[in-house]
């Protein structure tokens, strides 16, 4: 308790040093939390696509229903195909109407005969999509084949890039935070050199002298990590409708509050450990424990 009081007193007496230490930790953990949420979201999206492996083959408008049914039957015979859904021009129009229900003008412009019929093929594994796509490309009347492998590959590429760049940036910020807290704690200790000497002469243990400095480092971590978590959460809640609208049927948001609380707990613990570690380095160096 005394150590906390001393640390708070010290922060109050030099607020700008404390502010700079907390800010750099705030920035570090803001990046950290954002990166974690981004990677978590990307992983969920990838999982969504990977759990619904599908190839869609669009046929020319003049392809007859009989031809399409024949293709459907042929595909259903393939062992790794789970299901084949036929989407006729009328079905396509219905889907289009549902998607543009709020815009009657768009609905008036489109008729069934301009929409292509299609076959939607699901497989058990995402690895079979390429083979199905190849089979469909050789079918009579086929216009275009779209399958999620492209989307998944693209997503995976971006996720990996974000992860690598994010970790690199985060590492730089963690090191910077560590150095800033070490620097500020060292300045605090240097300014209290006389007091420290007196304390040692009258019988204070090294641990007793070190404790307020360590607590101070931990307080910087606590404040920085808590504030950045608050900001990230507010921004996330604010942008939830927009992001969810963009993602459509992929249910990613809102993030479970329990998950956010766990993130706060982990972040605060890490930040306090970072502050403690920085405090230990500076006090060890100055006291030569």
């Amino acid at each position: 308790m005394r150590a906390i009081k001393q640390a708070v007193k010290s922060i109050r007496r030099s607020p700008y040093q404390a502010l700079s230490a907390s800010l750099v930790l705030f920035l570090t953990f803001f990046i950290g939390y954002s990166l974690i949420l981004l990677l978590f979201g990307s992983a969920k999206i990838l999982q969504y696509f990977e759990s619904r492996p599908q190839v869609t083959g669009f046929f020319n408008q003049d392809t007859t229903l009989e031809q399409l049914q024949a293709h459907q039957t042929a595909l259903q015979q393939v062992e790794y195909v789970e299901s084949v859904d036929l989407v006729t021009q009328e079905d396509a129009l219905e889907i289009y109407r549902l998607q543009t229900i709020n815009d009657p003008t768009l609905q008036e412009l489109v008729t069934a005969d301009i929409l292509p019929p299609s076959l939607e093929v699901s497989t058990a594994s995402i690895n079979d999509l390429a083979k199905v796509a190849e089979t469909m490309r050789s079918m009579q009347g086929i216009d275009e084949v779209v399958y999620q492998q492209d989307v998944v590959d693209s997503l995976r590429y971006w996720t990996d890039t974000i992860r690598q760049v994010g970790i690199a940036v985060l590492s730089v910020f963690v090191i910077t935070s560590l150095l800033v807290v070490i620097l500020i704690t060292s300045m605090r200790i240097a300014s209290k050199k006389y007091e420290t000497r007196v304390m040692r002469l009258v019988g204070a243990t090294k641990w007793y002298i070190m404790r307020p400095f360590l607590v101070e480092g931990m307080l910087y971590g606590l404040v920085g990590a808590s504030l950045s978590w608050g900001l990230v959460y507010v921004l996330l809640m604010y942008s939830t409708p927009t992001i969810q609208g963009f993602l459509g049927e992929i249910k990613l948001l809102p993030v479970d509050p329990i998950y956010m609380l766990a993130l706060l707990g982990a972040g605060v613990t890490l930040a306090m450990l970072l502050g403690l570690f920085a405090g230990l380095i500076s006090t060890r160096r100055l006291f030569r424990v």
Partner: protein
Amino acid sequence: MVRFIEVTKVFPNGYIGLENVSFEVGPGELLYITGESGAGKTTLMRLLIREFDPTAGEIFLGEQNILHLPRKNVPYHRRRIGVVFQDYQLIPDRTIFENAALILEIMGTPLKQIRQRVADVLDLVGLSDKGLLFPVQLSGGELQRAAIARSLVTAPELLFADEPTGNLDAETAHGIMSLLKKIQDFGTTVLVATHDHDVIHDFPARFIELHQGILVKDSQNKGQEKDKSVENIDKEKENKSTKPAKSDKSQSDKEDKSDTENKEESESPKQEKNARD
């Protein structure tokens, strides 16, 4: 209560702080340690609180040989001794009350008890109305009293006052010495390092005299004082200084390795001079 047995302190560069000093102080006794500036009075105090270790000899506080204490127990040893430093060593940004409360705070004493004890000692030293002031707001005599209050707050078995009257006028010095005498009357062993002979004259008690680190006189040993006169010591020291002091060098080298804290605090000759003062 306190026993110094053939204690020698040689600083890392060969400078001799104390040489073969032996004396004993009984419980509740008042002892003056006299000698000119640089005689080794403060070195004696610093050895007693184990700010550094002697090169040779043994020091006992009660039955405890303090040199056998592990380094981690030294803070607890220091709490047994009240020290009034020559330069007061009061923390400038703490009030007199907070300064006096420092050791109790370190010891983890409950706040209520701290308030009571500090109020008592401030009352004893006559500073009960100055508790909320900062050191910079006090006079020299009041600072000395505040330093005494801090040293007394744990009711130590031993009080060491280093030049408590050094910077004070005669009247204030008399007041401080009356206070130390009062503390001794309560049963505390009091060691006073001073070069002020008026103090010894006004408050007579046993004294030992140091000269260039050597104990040259103990008023208790009447008729059997050491045969080393100040003149002889000066001559010996002069002779030594013309020859390279091999043993001192090797001793100091040994100490260099064994006592890092000492090395840290006694790097320059100027610091060593201060230590001896």
